[in-house]
């Protein structure tokens, strides 16, 4: 019997209609865990680096995490992996909600899609019964409405449906995959579904998920439960509200948006409005938000209810989560919150990423204001004073790839290349061709520098979370913070926090020092990679301060659930293995040090030498060479000799360990 995992993948060739239920080798889990970990391995094995995003061979995997479907609170992530049309690297956006648990109960750990269907279809999985169904009648339907249409036509009210809207069908590079109150948004998974002509994947499962030592697992969950209750009643003092709790940022609960609206940049990630949050704004925003939110809703098996059912004036009902409440309004320079609730509904039906898309629309507006795009490109667009109408109009064009929409649907990086004429300057907020959070700050932050530049996620949240975002001004605050911090891998981290000052010698950018930064960032990255393999919501683990899940309890959960005997070191080894494999996969696709750059204007005060030192120190700590490629030695430690061989054969690693010497002066 298999525990925690189901031991089967569904392999679906949408070109031929061939569907196979394939038993997996338990070794795959032993070596790479589940979720992102084992998906990376499948991509490495099957998708050669020559494959382009819209090639038949761009395999698309929907994966539950190893702990999805177990009673672990908040273990509900579905990881979608594919070569991104935007970054051209292996992307892995995730969604919460209810889909992954349903897949596990249906009896599968992953669904693997290959090739392209000639006509629009959807996949229907009900336990052992799996069928490809015609979806031609669903073409052009919204990503939300189609979920109910499918449930209705199947007469399966409990089926969970992940679907694309118009934007996915027209292969917008920022098309998302929507599912109930959740979505896998970043880096264009919806475009790959659309390219394969898969409108939706509907699942319903009624089978058991087994636990190796269920009694032990429940004992551990009791502890987690107590800690969740503790954290929900004891917010962390001395940090801003949004960081004080657990769960994803509680954007549906908190109405005080002074910090976001004044600290994040408006428009095309341009200007901060440091006195935006007036009393009038506060009053109007609070009443709009409270009026719009019908009910707070959770993902599967999670008490944190980060999403909400939205019932706003003149807008069909829908569900919202997290930060999209602000991204469109701020990008459009629109000061009333009604607009946000309105446009997000439309954006979700189209199925587009709520971070990239608003920036793309704002980018188009800027190009017009600066004469790079012309009136002709904007023919039919409401006048400039009507900022709301203009954004809506642009969104419609983008989702349908009509007129100028066909160009901006590729995201700012590719659109700027196509437009030329200086447009590149306006695609200024990207890392690895992908739009980032609209944050523009003063002083270089060495921790964030590493997180932004080096992680394969390439998207917001990167790998931050467990380490405070800023130094505490007062020693007593630092002491209070470190006093009760069981989530740390080592007590020496406490001293670093105690030493860290907001100003002066021991502050950004020189403290934490590059070696200390390396350890902190490596730890935080590892937490994210563990979550993504186990299917845990980062909001309950890697993405928040003092979370219920951490490096000192993950391995216990994994052991009790799976029956593998995994201690902390072994768990780290497993995630390091898939993390390095992921890096090698992207290296094989051409990524290296040259690509690891934050947006030029992310910080006003930059320190080129220090930045190089940070990068080199971190690479060395990771066991990567000067170019950011894992050394043969590192790969060997992780049983990845086959990867070293491959990289050498392709000339990406030269003679393995001697690599550093060869590359020292490049870069």
């Amino acid at each position: 019997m298999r525990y925690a995992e189901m031991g089967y993948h569904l392999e679906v060739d949408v070109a031929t209609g061939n569907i196979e239920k394939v038993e997996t080798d338990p070794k795959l889990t032993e070596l790479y865990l589940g979720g992102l970990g084992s998906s990376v391995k499948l991509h490495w094995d099957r998708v050669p680096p020559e494959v382009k995003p819209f090639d038949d061979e761009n395999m698309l995997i929907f994966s539950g995490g190893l702990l999805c479907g177990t009673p672990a609170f908040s273990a509900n992530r579905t990881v979608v992996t594919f070569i991104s049309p935007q970054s051209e690297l292996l992307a892995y956006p995730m969604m919460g909600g209810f889909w992954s648990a349903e897949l596990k109960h249906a009896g599968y750990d992953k669904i693997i899609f290959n090739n392209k269907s000639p006509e629009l279809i959807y996949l229907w999985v009900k336990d052992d019964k799996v069928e490809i169904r015609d979806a031609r009648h669903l073409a052009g339907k919204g990503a939300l409405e189609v979920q109910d249409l499918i449930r209705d036509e199947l007469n399966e009210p409990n089926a969970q449906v992940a679907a694309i809207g118009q934007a996915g069908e027209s292969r917008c590079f920022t098309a998302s995959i929507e599912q109930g109150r959740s979505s896998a948004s970043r880096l264009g998974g919806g475009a790959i579904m659309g390219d394969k002509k898969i409108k939706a994947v509907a699942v319903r499962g009624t089978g058991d998920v087994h636990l190796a030592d269920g009694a032990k697992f429940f004992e551990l969950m009791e502890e987690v439960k107590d800690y969740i209750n503790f954290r929900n009643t004891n917010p962390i003092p001395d940090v801003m509200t949004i960081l004080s709790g657990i769960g994803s940022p509680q954007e549906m609960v908190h109405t005080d948006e002074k910090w976001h609206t004044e600290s994040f940049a408006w428009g095309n990630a341009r200007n901060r409005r440091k006195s935006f949050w007036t009393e009038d704004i506060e009053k109007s925003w609070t009443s709009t938000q409270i009026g719009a939110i019908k009910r707070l809703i959770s993902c599967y098996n999670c008490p944190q209810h980060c999403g909400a059912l939205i019932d706003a004036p003149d807008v069909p009902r829908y569900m919202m989560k997290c930060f999209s409440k602000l991204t469109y309004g701020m990008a459009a320079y629109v000061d009333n919150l009604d607009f946000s609730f309105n446009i997000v509904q439309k954006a979700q039906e189209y199925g587009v990423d709520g971070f990239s898309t608003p920036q793309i629309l704002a980018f188009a507006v800027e190009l017009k204001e600066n004469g790079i795009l012309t009136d002709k490109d904007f023919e039919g667009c409401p006048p400039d004073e009507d900022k709301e109408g203009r954004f809506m109009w642009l969104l419609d064009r983008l989702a349908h790839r009509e007129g100028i929409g066909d160009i901006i649907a590729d995201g700012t990086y590719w659109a700027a290349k196509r437009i030329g004429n200086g447009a590149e300057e306006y695609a200024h907020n990207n890392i690895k061709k992908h739009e980032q959070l609209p944050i523009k700050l003063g002083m270089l932050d060495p921790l964030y520098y590493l997180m932004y530049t080096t992680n394969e996620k390439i998207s917001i949240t990167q790998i931050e979370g467990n380490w405070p975002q800023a130094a505490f001004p007062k020693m007593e605050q630092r002491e209070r913070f470190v006093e009760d911090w069981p989530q740390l891998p080592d007590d020496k981290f406490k001293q670093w926090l105690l030493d860290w000052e907001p100003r002066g010698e021991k502050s950004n950018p020189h403290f934490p020092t590059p070696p200390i930064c390396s350890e902190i960032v490596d730890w935080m990255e590892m937490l994210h990679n563990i979550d993504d393999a186990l299917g845990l919501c980062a909001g309950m683990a890697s993405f928040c301060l003092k979370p219920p899940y951490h490096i000192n309890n993950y391995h216990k959960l994994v052991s009790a659930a799976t029956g593998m005997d995994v201690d902390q070191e072994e768990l780290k080894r497993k995630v390091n293995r898939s993390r390095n494999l992921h890096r090698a996969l992207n290296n094989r696709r051409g990524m290296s040090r040259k690509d690891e750059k934050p947006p030029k204007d992310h910080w006003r005060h930059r320190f080129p030498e220090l930045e190089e030192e940070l990068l080199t120190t971190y690479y060395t700590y990771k066991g990567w060479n000067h170019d950011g490629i894992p050394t043969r030695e590192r790969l060997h430690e992780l049983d990845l000799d086959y990867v070293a061989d491959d990289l050498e054969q392709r000339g990406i690693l030269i003679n393995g360990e001697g690599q550093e010497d060869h590359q020292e002066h490049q870069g």
Partner: protein
Amino acid sequence: MAKVKKIIKNIKVDADRCSGCRGCEIACSAFHAEPKYSSVNPARSRVRVITHRLQDIWLPVFAGEYTPTECAGRDIYTIDGKDYDECGFCRAACPSRDMFKEPDSGLPLKCDMCEGEDEPLCVKWCLDGVLVYEEREVWVEEDSEEKKQEELDIGLGSLADKFGLNQLKDAMARMTTKE
């Protein structure tokens, strides 16, 4: 007449606060797994959260009695502007739906209030405070012999009406030989 003490077990459901997480279903199914906690399967749970997302309906319903035949008529309740359709509040394991039946055998499930536990598992696992457990002691009159006889007569009478005396006699005879 003699009075006896009876414990009434109650789960109060504050449905307006339900976040739809289904933690209650998970806990219930794990608790009733064989061996206890060895597996999870919400399809086996004795509490199910009836969900109509856009209608703002998240309604935890507990498995009640088994019924061999479905109702001839159906009801639609409108409360607070929301339509609770057909079988919305019904607790029966009924042929008209899959709910409250073991997915493999089809055998009916019934909430047993987690017999033997201090607190029902679904209540314990609902961290949003939607489910609240209460015990009430009530003193009830012990049923007298005459009253019991009376109830038996009424029950048998209704069966005789429904099936005819002969069929009832046959059934009784079969049950006696089985015993």
